[in-house]
């Protein structure tokens, strides 16, 4: 009886162990952590484990090989089709393995020989964990398994279709580099490296997303970026626990300071030159594999009103452009509400002929000015959204026709007044003057709030709204830096690069609120102002 019980217990234990071993070595559900099982000395068992981990996926390629003198060593090359460069795999991995003719005594000697001498790829890692082998294959590495060896070799031969760098469509400039980031993190980091040829440019990489395991790189310039901010970014990234990161926008929402605010507290850019500028100002960039949008932090409000071009043009032009943008921002936020306030509550502000002209145009319009503006704003938003979604060939044409036909028809039908069409069109044009799309969207959203405030309380509503908005903006912080700095609080030394873009020779120092100790941007004698007139 006792023997039977013992035998049953042993059987259960053996089954339990066997069951655990035979469990698919895929991603552990939920946690995403490796199960810690080592590789088996049996090549076929290891191959089976990988095949099971991928659920028999059709794109998993397993190439069995024989190596060594008289083919005494069994090996296999495993990779995912489409993620590796086939030529590299054939030339640098399969060929050396098959041509290995030495009679090596042990599997570890085979591995060492392959690793040290034969595999002609730049990066070769030795992996002993079965789960990590599967992850390496999923990441696009080519894994070499050797019979009787408890370690696999993972070779970096990734290669997949990707677009070449081209000018970013969302941040086009007249003057400046025409190169933009692409979806490949490695190409993006290389663009930064090319522009900052200094080992102080540190790029820390990690994988985020329990399922997607997206490669995320954090770039900063050692000695310029503030260590406390670097640590803060690291710590926020460490806390990210999410299934997938497909775009930097997802990560942005997970690490930003005020997630409920309509204003973005992390800037983004597709332009390497802008990111380099930010890094040299002491900011930190986060590059996410699979998207050309690179995040910049800490971000301040004024960053959203500047472009790289401001710094490439002469400072007069840069300053003028910035003022134009600020005007555009103000108009896009307040123009319709000011129109509503003036026509509804404060007619006395306008000269009599003008107010009479407006009144004549509005005669016969069945709606109050607020609803008139609301209808036009909503129509404008619809046309704009449709213009973005429509195929590029017909999108602009449909948008123009839509605006012209709808606007004209609305006036003829007596639904809106011509002046309202002018106001809404001017607002629409002004909203396109905001360089950063995320800020433009926030402004579009707030425009409706101000419309309602102006319709109910006139200028008082607008004034109270602006005060509340300013309080909100001033209270915001981005990684410890006040969002409205250097305007609130006023930082005198940084005012040279806000509304006014001072000449380069006057901006001798980096923003002191951001940098650590290396705050000098311009060396002695770099100023071109002295002597230029004499030459």
């Amino acid at each position, binding site marked *: 009886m006792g023997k039977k019980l013992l035998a049953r217990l042993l059987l259960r234990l053996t089954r339990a162990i066997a069951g655990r071993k035979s469990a698919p070595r895929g991603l552990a559900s939920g946690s995403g952590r490796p199960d810690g099982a080592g590789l088996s000395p049996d090549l076929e068992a290891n191959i089976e484990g990988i095949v099971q981990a991928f659920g028999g996926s059709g794109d998993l390629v397993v190439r069995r090989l024989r190596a060594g003198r008289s083919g005494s060593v069994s090996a296999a090359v495993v990779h995912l089709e489409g993620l590796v460069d086939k030529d590299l795999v054939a030339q640098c991995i399969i060929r050396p393995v098959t041509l290995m003719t030495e009679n090596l005594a042990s599997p570890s000697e085979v591995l060492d020989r392959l690793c040290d001498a034969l595999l002609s790829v730049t990066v070769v890692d030795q992996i002993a964990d079965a789960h990590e082998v599967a992850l390496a294959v999923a990441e696009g590495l080519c894994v070499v398994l050797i019979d009787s060896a408890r370690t696999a070799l993972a070779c970096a031969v990734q290669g997949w279709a990707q677009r070449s760098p081209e000018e970013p469509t969302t941040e086009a400039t007249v003057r400046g580099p025409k190169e933009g980031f692409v979806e490949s993190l490695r190409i993006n980091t290389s663009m930064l490296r090319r522009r900052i040829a200094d080992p102080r440019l540190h790029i820390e990489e990690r994988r985020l997303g329990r399922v997607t395991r997206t490669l995320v790189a954090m770039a900063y310039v050692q000695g310029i970026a*503030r260590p406390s901010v670097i640590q803060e970014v690291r710590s926020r990234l460490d806390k990210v626990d999410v299934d997938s990161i497909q775009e930097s926008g997802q990560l942005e929402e997970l690490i930003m300071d005020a997630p409920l605010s309509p204003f973005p507290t992390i800037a983004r850019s597709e332009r390497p030159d802008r990111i380099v500028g930010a890094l040299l100002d002491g900011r930190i960039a986060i590059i996410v594999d699979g998207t050309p949008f690179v995040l910049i932090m800490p971000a301040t409000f004024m960053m959203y009103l500047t472009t790289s071009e401001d710094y490439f043009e002469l400072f007069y032009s840069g300053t003028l452009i910035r003022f134009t943008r600020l005007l555009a921002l103000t108009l896009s936020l307040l123009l319709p509400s000011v129109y509503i306030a003036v026509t509804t*509550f*404060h007619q*006395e*502000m*306008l*000269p009599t002929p*003008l107010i009479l002209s407006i009144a004549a145009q509005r005669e016969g319009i069945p709606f109050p000015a607020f609803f008139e503006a609301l209808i036009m704003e909503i129509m404008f938003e619809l046309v704009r959204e449709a213009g973005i979604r429509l195929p590029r060939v017909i999108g602009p044409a449909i948008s123009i026709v839509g605006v012209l036909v709808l606007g004209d028809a609305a006036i003829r039908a007596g639904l809106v007044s011509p002046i309202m069409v002018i106001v809404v069109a001017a607002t629409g044009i002004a909203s396109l003057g905001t360089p950063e799309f995320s800020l433009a969207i926030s402004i579009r959203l707030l425009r409706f709030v101000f419309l309602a405030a102006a319709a109910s*309380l*006139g*200028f*008082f*509503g*607008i*004034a*109270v709204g*602006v*005060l*509340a908005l*300013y*309080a909100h903006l*001033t*209270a915001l912080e981005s990684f410890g*830096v*006040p969002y*409205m*700095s250097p*305007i*609130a*609080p*006023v*930082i005198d*030394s940084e005012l040279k690069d806000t509304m006014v873009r001072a000449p380069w020779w006057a901006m001798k120092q980096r923003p*002191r*609120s951001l940098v650590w100790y290396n705050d000098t941007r311009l060396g002695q004698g770099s100023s071109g102002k002295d002597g230029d007139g004499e030459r």
Partner: protein
Amino acid sequence: MTITHKTTARQLGSVLFLLRVATMTLTLPSVIGMPSSQGLWLAGIVGTVISLPLLAWMVTLSRAEGLDDVVRISRRLLGPIGGSTVGWLFVLYWLILAAFELRYISEAYLTGTMPETPIVVFMALTALVSAGIARRGIRLIAMMAELIAFLVLISLLLTMVLPLDVVRLRNLLPVFPEGLQPLILPTATAVPLFLDMVVLMMIAPSMTSGVGLMQGTVWSALVSGAVLTLLIVVVTAVFGPISTALELPALSLTRMISIGGAVERLELITVVSWTFGIGLALATVLWAAATASAHLLGLRCFEPLVYPLGGLAVFLGIRMWPDVSNFDKSTTAISGGLVTSLFILAVLAVLTAARWLRRRAGGGGDSGRRGETE
């Protein structure tokens, strides 16, 4: 790092400037109460000069007590009962000041632009936004004040410069039609306007240094005084001796502006800038009242008190002055009158005397010096 979590001298100066100038420019010179206004500018200058040593007295007391706030200083020097009494009186004073400012800006909107809207709408909304700002603490108020003070100053300068075409310098003559004696009362009533800056004794603990406290206070007093004096001169030059009878003289001044025949009246722009100024001044006062109340009630945080105090200010603003005429009469007594001066001067005198007695008795009069040295 350049960005400090403490209040700088310029930020303090901006807060105090807004606290004083926004209300002052709405009401003056009518609030001073004088039959003719030709010599009022002298009252502005003399009032500023007299107020400077009084403000310096407040600053010196704060610095001597280690930049502590006035409630803690009172409790330390006067004991729990005396100190708490002084503290509650300050809370009441700031509440009345808040109610006054709320009422004034709302009356300005009501009179100037939207006479059909119930006054409580203006008061409640302004109080709501100001309480929202006050709830975030003095740091936010100080950061906001720098830009808003600049905008208010620019707006005031425009108000004074743009109607230059209707300025008649002969309206300023004769300078003292009835001699200097009638100027005594206006000067005496101009001084308490500056004493409202006693709120600096609540802001002191957040200051970077005692020197900054002094610099900010003096700067704000001088700029406010200059603006006050200039405004009196321009209003008198435009409207003549009857300017003291105007209800909202600065508003009337902006109505005289006409730019290129396209924009006729700019009073709304002025009122909007006043909204910013008074909104922030109100936030400062509400923050001071809430912080003082929290100290007195032994609470760890003041934030929960801000909205109730804002509501109370709205209630007081409506109940204390049932109609406009009643409001106009009372304002002189409340804000510019002797009540304010007597209260603040009495508190300062009592605190100074208590401190002197304590030092003489070898007590802990220097207990607060630590903060200043740090």
